């Protein structure tokens, strides 16, 4: 995995930065994916697999995402569950001050694990 890669799908931009101790996926713009399995799920699965291989945590940073539809949330749910029951460490970060983000992402705490492998964090 290179240090920084950018993926685009219409108005959604995803920056994947693997340079640090964690692999950070930063989501920007608007996500209006039609199918849950398109674009985002393969990217999340690939990143999770490579992060596990490199013994790194993934940080899913949604703080600068302006909008997402429900088909965007589905792959996120699936990757959290896959890591929860298997291998991998994921921290999901959202902007608590943005009400839609707080409502959408705070509910994902059901996937948190007591050992901190899966963390859902509202910031700012």
């Amino acid at each position, binding site marked *: 995995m290179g240090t920084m890669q950018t993926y685009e799908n*219409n*108005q959604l931009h995803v920056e994947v930065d693997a340079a640090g101790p964690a692999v950070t996926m930063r989501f920007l713009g*608007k996500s*209006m994916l*039609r*199918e*849950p*399995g398109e674009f985002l*799920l393969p990217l999340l*699965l690939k990143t999770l697999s490579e992060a596990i291989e490199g013994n790194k945590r993934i940080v899913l940073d949604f703080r600068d995402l302006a*909008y997402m*539809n*429900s*088909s965007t*949330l*589905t792959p996120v*749910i*699936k990757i*959290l*569950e*896959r890591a929860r029951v298997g291998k991998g460490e994921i921290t999901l970060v959202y902007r608590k001050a*943005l*009400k*839609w983000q707080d*409502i*959408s992402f705070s*509910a*994902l705490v*059901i*996937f948190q694990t007591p050992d901190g492998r899966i963390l859902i964090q509202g910031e700012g």
Partner: protein
Amino acid sequence: MESQLDLRVKADWSEMARVNEEAGEYLASCGLSAEAVQMYTMVVCELVENAIKYGNFVDEEDRIEVHVSVASPTISVQVTHHCRETGGAALRDLDRTVQWLRSYQAPFEAYVARMKAISREPLDAGKSGLGLARITYEGRALLDFYVDENSMLSVSAVSSLA
């Protein structure tokens, strides 16, 4: 204050960017807070997305009719389009989902239940079914639908302005 927005939308996913933008601009022009604009834009978009996915668009001229009305203290969104076949699988699925959502006292519980169900589904499962749960939970809206004699399906979401 009472105002409304009417949009005619092609059953083409590329229309979603326009729907998102025009709904947001209209809601902002009504003087709603940024939070409310985001919330109800989501409601409009989720309903239109469902219409594109599950509507019946045989004629090139077929369109999805979107009606958004802000009449304080209520906002209503209605999306109308041809349904595949009256009493067909898509309509039964919609009815089942609406009834299921109504069976929960708190929309949050339905939302979480749906998320848990999604997490157990195969990775390649095509349908999330999360959109309507999101409308009732995040949009705090009451969902309803009816089919008229011309097989036009109208799905509505009504909520008290945040």
